[in-house]
């Protein structure tokens, strides 16, 4: 546990060099988007809980897939693996410390947007909604790590992950309801885990459901267990460079 927090602190220090980029991409731009949402809905807060929930979920997906997954790919490079193997750092601890760091990074905008969403919602689940958001973060974190462990090629990953996060956000009810799309595209949205994360969060913020919430919980739980098992096996694998 000591090493876990030391490594998260290490990551924090190591990222100082990118402070301006992180400030703009991680704080200023998301908050600007949130302010735009608030301004667009001025006078009527009816759609704010829906849009703010979409904002939270898309921020989580974007941060984890664009930054966390790439960090995981980085530590899976053969040279880096050799160094860390010799330093005695466990891959599991390193990945966990990255997840902690980037979760902290998401906290400010998530807290502000959640408070506003709960404020504007008619009859929100005051506990269930934050739990749904934490669940969404957990799922996206495990998805990002599993994909990072799988892709491995850093140059491929730099192209794949931004596209993937963009596609996941576009093809989810983050900023528009599912019903506004043709039925064929709605079916495609069912395959998107972010759709189900949003479906659950929307349910507890009092927005109409497109998919039965129990079905979303079931689908996410099954895929979470599958991914977690894959992730664990990859992180604990001894002969990690065997197939490179």
């Amino acid at each position, binding site marked *: 546990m000591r090493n876990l927090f030391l490594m998260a602190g290490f990551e924090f220090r190591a990222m100082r060099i990118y402070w301006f980029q992180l400030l703009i991409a991680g704080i200023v731009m998301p908050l600007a988007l949130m302010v735009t949402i608030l301004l667009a809905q001025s006078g009527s807060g009816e759609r704010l809980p829906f849009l703010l929930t979409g904002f939270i979920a898309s921020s989580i997906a974007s941060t984890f897939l664009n930054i966390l997954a790439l960090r995981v790919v980085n530590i899976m490079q053969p*040279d880096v693996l*050799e160094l860390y193997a010799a330093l005695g750092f466990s891959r599991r601890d390193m990945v966990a410390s990255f997840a902690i760091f980037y979760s902290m990074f998401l906290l400010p905008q998530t807290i502000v947007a959640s408070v506003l969403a709960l404020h504007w919602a008619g009859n929100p689940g005051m506990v269930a909604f934050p739990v749904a958001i934490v669940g969404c973060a957990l799922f996206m974190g495990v998805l990002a790590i599993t994909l990072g462990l799988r892709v491995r090629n850093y140059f491929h990953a730099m192209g794949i992950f931004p596209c993937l996060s963009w596609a996941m956000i576009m093809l989810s009810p983050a900023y528009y309801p599912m019903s506004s799309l043709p039925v064929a595209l709605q079916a495609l949205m069912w395959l998107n885990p972010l759709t189900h994360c949003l479906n659950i969060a929307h349910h507890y913020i009092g927005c109409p459901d497109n998919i039965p919430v129990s079905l979303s919980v079931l689908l996410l739980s099954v895929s979470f267990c599958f991914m977690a098992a894959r992730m664990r096996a990859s992180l604990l694998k001894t002969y990690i460079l065997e*197939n490179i």
Partner: protein
Amino acid sequence: MLEISHLTKIYPNGFKANDDISISVSRGERIGIIGPNGAGKTTLIRQLFGLVKPTSGTILLDGVDTGPNPGIVPLTIGYVPQMPLSFPGLTVRETVSHMLRLGGRGGTRLARDVESVLDSFSLGSCAGMSGYQLSGGLRKMTLMAIAWASDKKLLVMDEPTSMVDIGRKYRVWDLIRSAADRTILISSHDMNEIQKVCDRVYVLVGGRVVVSGTAADIARSMKVPAEMEFVPLRRDTALDALKRSRASWNSTENIITVSFPELHDAISFAADVEKEAGVEYLKIEAPSFEKAILAFTGEEHHA
């Protein structure tokens, strides 16, 4: 300390990277591994760290088989990777300090050890520089400082002084030579480095150990013909002596070049010609460690 026995690695694509390699490293020894690119050095190191599975053979660390006990490797071995990796956003001092903290050090000992190792590796002047500002050589020195400060029983160094400037290079060699209590395995292309710091050398070619021993033994084991160039004081007398000898020779306007089957033939001829004709200039090229290695690795004609 380290006992590698009959280690063979065949990759899933059928490529045999290591072929029945046996290497023994006793406590306090400094062992060099030399080989051309693709000789199997990296695969050997990766098997040592449990990143690649040996097809057959064993690796024992302090008598413990690393196969079923991979946890012993990071506790016993410190490593200097070939690539000059760095943390771009951290200063040299922060990097070394953080690595030692993760290794369990803290308090006044941590501060003392950080300053001591920075001084030992001549990194004091760049301790406040960030990783992205460092040259390749300084990055390697930082990695070496981390490994050195880790107090591991065995240090594995992959091309430790590549990219390092000559002053620091000598500093590192002095450190390695003077650290009698450290066991060190160096993989290097720099034969000068291996010759200067290693007690014994293993030459790897095509995944096999083709020769091992001290650098002097390896050089002696090769019957490399000696070549002598000289300028005699009395040219005609020297040419007469050459005609009497069985050596092959040729002559330009001033310099006479003579080839001998072995070094001692060249030395005795040099003594004779000095006595009879006098010598103004003399150069004998004898079998060198470098030439011997090139002969073993089959790269002589490309050198």
